[in-house]
């Protein structure tokens, strides 16, 4: 890989200081499993300073807060998948991380890297979106925060500068009894780029009414979205086949509305409608 200079700071304060002192473009290099692939295509990093932040101690760890979970930016997908905290309080994210790439990539690639690469097909994004993920980062050393849905501007582009250092991701800690589903449609089981993902969470009160519900579709839109108006179809009501069909119809109608009519629309729309209906029917008839 062609590059201008290489640095390996040992702490976040040292990284902030270093970033302020560097001239020219900077690449914050964590797992690097996307960057090394881009570097094969051309010499796009020839003028860049590579700052290796892999393994920075402040970016590690998954912590349970009062009603949120804090995931360090440098946590790998394998660590998320195996974390007892994530499995208990945000299972949809563990399930999403399990479908990413191969084991060898999940062992090395970081969650903040997956977010900042901002691939529309990134498997973690739909799960993070329904968990109301917020991204904490340092801009010129000052702590800032943005919801995931605002952080990603368009495919492969976030609103961050090359010197903004993501420090952690905060997601909802789901109350006990919340059911979650993560569904991935790919060409094959392992190592597939998603054609579509569906992530959803639902909680029902003692009388059977849905008091918490969030559903979204991934790998379909240019960036992650959530749909409060679609969630509203079920919130405060008892799930029945008519409402489930209404949600499936509404969410599949978003595909041409947001992404425009593409070649894949004729395929994606019915798949989205049918799979949403199937997943919701399974979820609500199971328990």
């Amino acid at each position, binding site marked *: *890989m062609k590059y201008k200079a290489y640095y390996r700071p040992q702490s976040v304060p040292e990284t902030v200081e270093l970033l302020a002192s560097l001239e020219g473009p900077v690449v914050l290099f964590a797992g690097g499993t996307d960057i090394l692939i881009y570097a094969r295509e051309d010499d796009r990093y020839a003028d860049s300073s*590579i700052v290796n932040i*892999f393994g920075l101690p402040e970016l590690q760890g998954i912590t349970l807060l009062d009603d949120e979970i804090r995931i360090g930016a440098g946590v790998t997908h394998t660590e998320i998948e195996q974390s007892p905290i994530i499995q208990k309080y945000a299972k949809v994210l563990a399930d999403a991380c399990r479908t990413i790439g*191969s*084991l060898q*990539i999940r062992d090395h690639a970081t969650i903040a890297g997956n977010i900042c690469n901002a691939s529309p097909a990134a498997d973690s994004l739909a799960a993070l979106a329904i968990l109301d993920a917020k991204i904490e980062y340092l801009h010129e050393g000052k702590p800032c925060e943005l919801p995931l849905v605002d952080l990603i501007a368009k495919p492969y582009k976030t609103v961050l500068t090359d010197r903004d250092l993501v420090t952690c991701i905060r997601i909802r800690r789901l109350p006990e009894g919340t059911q979650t589903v993560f569904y991935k449609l790919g060409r094959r089981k392992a190592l597939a780029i998603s054609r579509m993902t569906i992530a959803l969470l639902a909680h029902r009160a003692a009388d059977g009414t849905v008091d918490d519900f969030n559903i979204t579709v991934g790998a379909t839109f240019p960036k992650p979205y959530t749909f409060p108006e679609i969630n509203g179809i079920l919130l405060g009501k008892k799930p029945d086949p008519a409402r489930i069909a209404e949600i499936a119809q509404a969410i599949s109608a978003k595909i041409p509305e947001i992404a425009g009519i593409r070649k894949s629309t004729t395929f994606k729309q019915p798949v989205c409608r049918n799979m949403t209906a199937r997943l919701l029917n399974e979820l609500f008839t199971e328990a």
Partner: protein
Amino acid sequence: MKQTLSFTLNHKPYTIEADPCDRFLDVLRNDLSLRGTKEGCGVGECGACTIVINSNAVTSCLVLAGQADGADIMTVEGLSETEIGSVLQRCFIENGAVQCGFCTPGMLMSAYALLQHNPNPTREEIKEAIAGNLCRCTGYVPIVNSIEAAVKSLQS
């Protein structure tokens, strides 16, 4: 722009001068002349270059040399000196798991990482552990059989 990198490789300490932005795969094969680790696709899809870093199986074509600094690394060259590794190698030979042999180092390293974490995997868990390793000879059944045989052998 070479820098000093220090790491443990196959249980031996190494301090080398290498470009920190080379792929670690190239450092292994070119700087250290350890050519057991193969390059297949170069984009992390085939698993031929799998090595074990800090007990995790990773594709070394997607690891920066600078990331190896301070790490504990195992490649196929070090397998025979470990109990799990030597049993795996014997079982691969006995069960006909090696055809052209190009995927074999990566398969062995994925299997080695699995058995380190999980000494008693199910057949399904074995398949999942090598899902990131492609065999163009398509000899997956003998490979899975070999890992199962290694599990049995290690337990007895």
